[in-house]
């Protein structure tokens, strides 16, 4: 039932630093993913302007006809968002867990430059494990 279609990580300025596709029907080329990521960054900022009350932190969940988009923004401004099937549960926890993996395997990597695209093997491995585990656990229900 529940499946993740893709994962994006964008840096403070809106540039895409990580993109992983887990099974969407249409393939998007790199340029398109970059555009989509920047567009999302701007939409996130504009939504804060339109809030009727103080203290808006931006869009956390976008529900569309064919997919849901969950977004998590860290305190530093790095955004993690995942495109999944409508009604998928526990995406917020998955995003927080991915943030932990990011801090462990990307930020603590001495060769990683801040705000640059992520090329860390351990991060990829652990991320795949986390997503697969999530999928297996959900299928097992």
């Amino acid at each position: 039932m529940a499946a993740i279609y893709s994962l994006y990580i964008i840096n403070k300025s809106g540039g895409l630093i990580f993109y992983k596709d887990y099974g969407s029907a249409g393939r998007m080329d790199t340029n398109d993913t970059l555009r989509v990521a920047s567009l999302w960054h701007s939409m996130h900022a504009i939504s804060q302007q339109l809030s009727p009350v103080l203290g808006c932190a931006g869009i956390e969940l976008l529900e569309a006809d064919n997919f849901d988009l969950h977004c998590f923004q860290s305190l530093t401004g790095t955004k993690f968002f995942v495109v999944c099937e409508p009604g998928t549960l526990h995406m917020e926890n998955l995003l927080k867990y991915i943030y932990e993996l990011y801090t462990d395997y990307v930020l603590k990597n001495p060769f990683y430059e801040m705000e640059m695209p992520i090329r860390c093997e351990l991060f990829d491995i652990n991320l795949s494990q986390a997503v697969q585990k999530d999928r297996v656990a959900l299928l097992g229900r």
Partner: protein
Amino acid sequence: MQFFGGSDISPSPPAPTAPGNNAHMIYVFNRNGVCLLYKEWNRPLHTLNAQQDHKLMFGLLFSLKSLTAKMDPTSAEKGNLGVPQLPGQGCSFHSFRTNTYKLSFMETPSGIKIILVTHPKTGDLRDSLKYIYNLYVEYVVKNPLYTPGAPVR
């Protein structure tokens, strides 16, 4: 696809029972971006003046629709970002939620967009939006003194 059933107004959706569940604002736009109706009931914070606020809202929704049509993981064929989409073409979003508000959106085939900004814990408001659209059709469109494209009085 049968968009709305019947010509009579559908029964009113159940009124929200929890306190604090009333709407903050409502916007109605036509396909050109003219704000036909704007009402606010509870808006402590005004970031911009009314004109800019309407334009920003319309722009945000236009771009989000374009984004969801492009990002749709279930369709193989997608146009490029920024290509204006006809109402109903491509995957469109129906709501988004932030920590302080929830925005529910509905677009009709004629391009009329109805937006309701409410408390974040609000449930699915699509039926309420359909009901509002039916009211709009009954009392605004069928009013012989109303000119299409003008703000609603």
